[in-house]
């Protein structure tokens, strides 16, 4: 014990509570972080499917404008005869963005992995505030219900883009109730995220097991923890923007209304953009930091090699976290921002690429001279590195103001942020799902289906978002109902159509995952065993799959970092290439010790 900071863990404060027996307390209003993680998982995956379907509608429109949408048209577009109209179209792309960001990727990446992994990987029996954790999910569910409700009211859901810029998002542009409901949903999901963030931050600080020093945390925990810090700091800003917008819409205030529509001077539409992007730029790191952490761990686990320059990765993530709060102005280069301010934001934006590149190099040097096991999670991790590389590098173009004068609001932006926020976050999520599925459900997914899913997904994502980059490079603006109104875009009909074909194939490929996932969860499948991947972190080495209600029978005592692979001493003593974080190193056999003395 002497070598371990004694203040950590407080095992005496984490007694084993009996598991609740009633169905409601166990599966519905559960305080168990593992059940809450699964609730977020299901809620997120369902909305991921909805968001993906909306994406297919957008792609249909760009490939075949004015033509009847097969299957979905007769079901959901009856008022326009099965065709997507301009008003439907703006609802579709707005809701696609909002659903994917706030109601699909956020709950799965942060809600599921944060809840499931933080206590298990740091050696705690639950979150610091289990009740707050439960409330976080139920607030989130209310926000999802508000989104569903917005589809059912007259004039449809929100239509001012996912960013909801006023005055378009006020009654001047969007008079329907749907926009109000969605603004309210954003507020509620912000409350849920803040609750979760407070909980994650506190849990990591206070409930680490004895010996789990900060520099022994798995990189996944670092990613999730920095995410929580960003959420706690910046989501409340989004909440305030949403609240002011709600007041403008509902009570006739004029915080964001100016110009001819304003009474007595009005407010300032640009103020909303500042509030939105102070939150919005950290948000893109909120959606990628957990993926970075997961990839950092998984790459090391399956290269059977310690993570290269672990501390460098931690510092890089810390630097990104700090810088992410001061680069947001690059979303507003063409709003009439002061040139000096703009150039300051440009410098900071270009600088934030350095820590991100550092992470990529660390991953690659981790794989270098490893002994790679190409499991499904490893493939997805490497795929994440690939698409994140494309997304990160294209971001450099957009961080530069003079290029932004041309590229801003074009499909180039769309391609760029889909490579990072969509492709990298999605592949990072899938890495985590395939990797921790055995721990969450106690069963193993089919590896062959998983690998087929990987190849279709990574090739599909690259082609679809690559097509968007090309369209943007040629100048095509984003969010056009019919891009071919413009003569200069006429030549891009083929490109847009092919990109859509790839998108349909990508969407179809996801059914491999759905089939694999549902079949394994609800059917019979090979039992996972405690540690099927032969890795080192506490959730695999010190508890069963799935873990019991109290996670750990005995709170583990951590002795080393998360990536002790191929240590010669371990190999000698244990005959395997890994040793758990809390595993005791056996004394060398007596004969050898005697021989050494002699």
């Amino acid at each position, binding site marked *: 014990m002497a070598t371990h900071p004694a203040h950590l863990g407080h095992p005496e404060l984490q007694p084993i509570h009996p598991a609740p027996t009633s169905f409601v307390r166990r599966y519905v209003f559960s305080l168990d972080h593992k059940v809450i993680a699964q609730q977020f998982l299901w809620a997120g995956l369902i909305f991921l499917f909805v968001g993906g379907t909306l994406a297919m509608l957008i792609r249909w429109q760009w490939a075949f404008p004015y033509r009847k949408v097969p299957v979905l048209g007769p079901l959901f577009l009856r008022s326009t005869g099965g065709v997507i109209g301009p008003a439907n*179209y*703006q609802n579709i792309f707005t809701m696609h963005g909002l659903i994917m960001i706030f109601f699909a990727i956020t709950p799965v990446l942060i809600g599921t992995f944060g809840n499931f992994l933080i206590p298990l990987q740091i050696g705690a029996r639950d979150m610091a505030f289990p009740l707050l954790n439960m409330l976080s999910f139920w607030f989130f569910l209310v926000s999802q219900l508000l989104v569903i409700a917005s589809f059912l009211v007259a004039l449809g859901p929100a*239509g001012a*883009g996912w960013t909801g*810029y006023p*005055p*378009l998002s006020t009654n*001047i*542009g969007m008079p329907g109730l749907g926009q109000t409901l969605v603004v309210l949903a954003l507020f509620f999901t912000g409350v849920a995220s803040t609750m979760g963030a407070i909980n994650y931050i506190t849990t990591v600080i206070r409930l680490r097991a004895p010996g789990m020093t900060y520099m022994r945390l798995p990189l996944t925990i670092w990613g999730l923890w920095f995410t929580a810090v960003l959420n706690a700091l910046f989501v409340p800003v989004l909440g305030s923007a949403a609240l002011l917008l709600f007041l403008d819409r509902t009570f006739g205030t004029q915080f964001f209304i*100016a*110009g001819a*529509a304003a009474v007595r001077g009005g407010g*300032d*539409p640009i103020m909303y953009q500042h509030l939105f992007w102070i939150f919005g730029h950290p948000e893109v790191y909120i959606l990628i930091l957990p993926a970075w952490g997961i990839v950092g761990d998984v790459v090391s686990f399956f*290269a059977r*090699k*310690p993570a*290269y320059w*672990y501390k460098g990765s931690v510092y890089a993530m810390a630097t990104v976290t700090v810088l992410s709060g001061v680069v947001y102005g690059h979303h507003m280069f*063409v*709003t009439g921002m002061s*040139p000096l301010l*703009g*150039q300051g934001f440009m410098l900071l934006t*270009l*600088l934030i*690429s*350095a820590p991100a590149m*550092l992470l*990529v190099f660390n991953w*690659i*040097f981790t*794989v*270098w001279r*490893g*002994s*790679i*096991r190409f499991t499904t999670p490893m493939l997805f991790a*490497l795929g994440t590195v690939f698409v994140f*590389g494309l997304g990160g*590098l294209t971001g*450099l*173009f957009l961080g*530069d*103001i*003079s*290029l932004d*004068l*041309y590229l801003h*609001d074009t499909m180039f932006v769309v391609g760029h942020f889909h490579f990072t926020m969509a492709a990298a976050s999605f592949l990072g999520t899938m890495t985590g799902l395939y990797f921790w599925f055995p721990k969450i459900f106690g069963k193993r997914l089919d590896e062959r289906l998983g690998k087929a899913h990987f190849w279709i997904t990574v090739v599909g994502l690259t082609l679809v978002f690559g097509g968007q980059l090309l369209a943007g*490079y*040629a*100048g095509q603006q984003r969010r056009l*109902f019919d891009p071919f109104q*413009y*003569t*200069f875009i006429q*030549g891009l009909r083929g*490109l847009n159509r092919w990109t859509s074909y790839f998108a349909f194939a990508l969407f179809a490929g996801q059914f491999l995952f759905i089939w694999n996932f549902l079949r394994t969860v609800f059917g019979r499948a090979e039992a996972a065993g405690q540690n099927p991947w032969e890795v080192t972190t506490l959730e695999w080495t010190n508890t069963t799959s799935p873990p019991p209600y109290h996670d750990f029978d005995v709170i583990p005592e951590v002795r080393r970092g998360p990536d002790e692979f191929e240590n010669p001493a371990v190999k000698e003593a244990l005959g395997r*290439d890994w040793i758990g974080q809390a595993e005791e190193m056996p004394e060398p056999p007596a004969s050898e010790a005697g021989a050494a003395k002699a």
Partner: protein
Amino acid sequence: MSALRRMAAVAAVLVAAAARADPRPERGYGLPHDASLDGHRVDWLIHFTIIALGIVFLAVLGMLVYAAVRHRGAHVAAYDHGNTRKSALVVLGCVGIVVVVVDGNLFGHAVDDLNGHFWNFSKVEADPRTVRIEVNAHQWVWTVRYPGPDGRFNTPDDIVETNGLHVPLGVPVILQLASTDVIHSLYLPNFRVKQDAVPGSITRLWFQGQEPGEFELACAQHCGPNHYKMRAVLSVMEPAAYAQWLADAQEDARRGFDPDDAEAHWGWEWKRL
């Protein structure tokens, strides 16, 4: 009667001119044709960055693929935490090269291009040849106001045009932008410039056409269901043709002026921003 006939003839000519306004289609997948004084700066920086980052990306991808193939589990992994000073320096060196070559180049050029050209309004305002035009964006129309002979805006001699913008060749043009309803963004793909039009404030951009012809003026900011239709045509004209067009338009404006049409009397004192 003859006055009426003459007006009809003028109208017919104008309609024919509008119908002729037919921007050149772009064929390839590359950047649109550059018709401006400064667009080549953007093009050069994009191309340099594509090539530099392409090399970086392929090199890193090559390493990843090589590592993946070479270290396929056929041998034992190296026991290396990469936490020596040398390991850190290797990574920092790789990052440093990219940051200096790509980021440094981007930043340096952008600062020069902005302060010397794209955002150098003091140079353009001081130029005696500069043409000043006001643009009012609203759902889903671009309304354009030329000051007329008195050089002042919102006076009876102003020329007002809808979804069209006429400028002379080879001289700087400054646009001051406003919006009456929601945020729009004036985008000239062939000139590599873009500027938001924000309700409640005046923004500006400038450009200079280097070849005569018709080019598209697009809205780049989602502004409602008909955003996709918010398209105008920019005509860059030889100075003589421009003078003629201006004179004709002046005549039309004088005849068309209606002191009671309050809606049409927007416009502001030219802002010295």
